[in-house]
C-alpha cells in the first residue's frame, strides 16, 4: 500500500496547490513562500500518520487494513480511494501499477483520477456522485460500473465505483470518499500450480492446460501454446473433467473460477 504520487506530464499545465497559479500564466508570485507552505503541509501530514502508528501500538485496525489491501492485491484487484473531488487518497499496489501504465486510467498533475480517453459519463463525475452520496438510497444509485477504453486497444478496464460514506466518528466528521475497484481483464490468471495439484490432484501438464482454459483459450490454442498434440490435450481434458467432477469445458472454467478464482500466489 502506498499513497498517491503525482507525476506532472509534459502535456499538462502545472497548477500550484498552494496559491493556485498556473505555470502557463507565469507560475507562483512568490515561489519560495509556496515551497515553504507545501513543506509545512507535508510535515503535518507525515506527523499525523506517524502519530497514528506510534501512539497506538495496539491499534491493530491500521495493520488489519494493510492486510486487507494486501488481500485485494492477491485477488489482482486494484483499489483506489478518492475524495469527492476525485483526488486519489490511497491506492493498493495493483491500482498503482495500473495508474503507472497510463493506459486507460491515470492521474492528473493535481492527483485527480481521470480516464486516458474521453468517457461518458466522465470518471470524475462518477467519483463525485459516489463520494457525495450520503443517504443509503443515493449510495445504491451511485454504484456504477464503467468500461474504460484504453489507448493501447487492449480490452477496457472495468471500474466499479462505490460510495464509502462512514458515520461521523468521535471528533472526526463523516468521511466522504469513493471506492474504485479496478479490474484489468488482460492480466493473466496466475493460479498456483501447486495449489491446483493439492485441490484436485492435477498433474503439472493438467494444471498448465487448466490455466490456459481459464484465460479463455480454445483447445487448439492450448495445444499450440503447450506444444502438445490434440489427442494428448484431449486426454488431459478428460482427466480434468474426471478429477473435478464436471462434464464440459465451460463448466470446468466456471468451476475453476469459483473454486480457486483469481487468488494468486504471493509475489516475493
Amino acid at each position, binding site marked *: 500500500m502506498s499513497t498517491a504520487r503525482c507525476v506532472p506530464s509534459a502535456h499538462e499545465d502545472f497548477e500550484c496547490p498552494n496559491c493556485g497559479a498556473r505555470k502557463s500564466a507565469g507560475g507562483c508570485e512568490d515561489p519560495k513562500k509556496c515551497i515553504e507552505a507545501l513543506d509545512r503541509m507535508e510535515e503535518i501530514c507525515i506527523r499525523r500518520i506517524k502519530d497514528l502508528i506510534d501512539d497506538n501500538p495496539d491499534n491493530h485496525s491500521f495493520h488489519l487494513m494493510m492486510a486487507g489491501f494486501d488481500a485485494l492485491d492477491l485477488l489482482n484487484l486494484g483499489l483506489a480511494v478518492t475524495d469527492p473531488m476525485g483526488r486519489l487518497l490511497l491506492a493498493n499496489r495493483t491500482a498503482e501499477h495500473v495508474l503507472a501504465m497510463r493506459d486507460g486510467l491515470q492521474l492528473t498533475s493535481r492527483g485527480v483520477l481521470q480516464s486516458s480517453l474521453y468517457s461518458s459519463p466522465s470518471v470524475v463525475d462518477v467519483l463525485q456522485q459516489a463520494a457525495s452520496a450520503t443517504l443509503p438510497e443515493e449510495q445504491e444509485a451511485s454504484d456504477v*460500473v464503467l468500461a474504460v477504453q484504453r489507448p493501447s486497444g487492449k480490452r477496457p478496464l472495468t471500474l466499479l465505483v462505490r460510495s464509502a460514506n462512514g458515520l461521523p466518528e468521535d471528533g472526526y466528521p463523516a468521511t466522504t470518499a469513493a471506492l474504485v475497484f479496478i479490474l484489468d481483464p488482460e492480466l493473466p490468471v496466475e493460479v498456483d500450480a501447486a495449489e491446483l495439484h493439492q485441490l484436485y490432484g492435477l498433474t503439472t501438464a493438467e494444471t498448465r492446460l487448466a490455466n490456459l482454459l481459464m484465460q479463455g483459450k480454445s483447445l487448439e490454442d492450448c495445444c499450440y501454446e503447450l506444444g502438445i498434440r490434440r489427442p494428448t490435450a484431449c486426454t488431459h481434458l478428460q482427466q480434468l473433467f474426471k478429477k473435478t467432477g464436471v462434464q464440459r469445458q465451460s463448466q470446468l472454467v466456471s468451476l475453476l473460477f469459483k473454486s480457486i478464482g483469481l487468488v494468486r500466489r504471493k509475489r516475493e
Partner: protein
Amino acid sequence: MTGFDALDLLNIGFIVTNISGRPLLVNGTAEKILEAKDGIELTSGGGLLSTSPGCNSLSMESILAAKAGTHQAVIALQRPSGKRPLTLLVRWAQGMTSADDPVPPTTLVFILDPECPANPEPELRQLYGLTSAETRLANLLMEGKTLDECCDTLGIRRSTAKMHLRNVFTKTGVQRQGELVALLFKSTGSVRMGKKGRRSGWKPLDSGETSDAEFPAQPC
C-alpha cells in the same frame, strides 16, 4: 474505515487471523459462510473450527499452524451437506508489508464457495450494455450451463437463445463460449454491487487482541 468497506463488497469470504488462527477480521461473505456452519464455523471461544467430515476433530488452528512453514496453503473443506467442498486459500502476511514495520504476523484466509452463484447481473448490463434477456443468458453460461440447459431454465426456444448468444459475443467481442465465460469472470471479478453484503460497520470480534473501540459497532 474505507479499506474495510471495500472488503465487504467482495463476494468471496475473507478472514484475517492472528498466527494461532484466531480471526481478527471477518468480511460479510465470510460471516455468512461461517453462519451456515457447513464445513467451517466459529467455536464459542471465537476460533475457527472445521466441521468437515474428513477432519472432524481438527480445529482450524492446528491445520493453519501445521502449514505455517510453507507461507501458503490450500485446503478443500468437505461439507456435511454434500455440496461441493469450500476452498480455503491461506497466505501468510508477514513480509508483505515493509521490512522495518513491526507488524504482528497475520494470516490471510480466502474462503471460496463454488456453489455460490457468481450473479453479476447489474455489472454485466452496465459494462457491456447487455439487455435483460442477454444478461440472464450470460449469467447462466457463467455457471457452466449449456445452451440447451439455458433454454430450459429461461423457457426460451433454442433459436432465441442463439440470437441472444450472438449478441452477447458481439457486445463483448469474443468468439467462443469458453472465452466468454473466462472474460466475464475476469472483467467482473469478485466485487458485487448493491445491498448484498453491504453493512454499515465492522462488527467487533471479541478475540482478546482487538478492543471494541477499534471497530466501533455502528447501528444498521
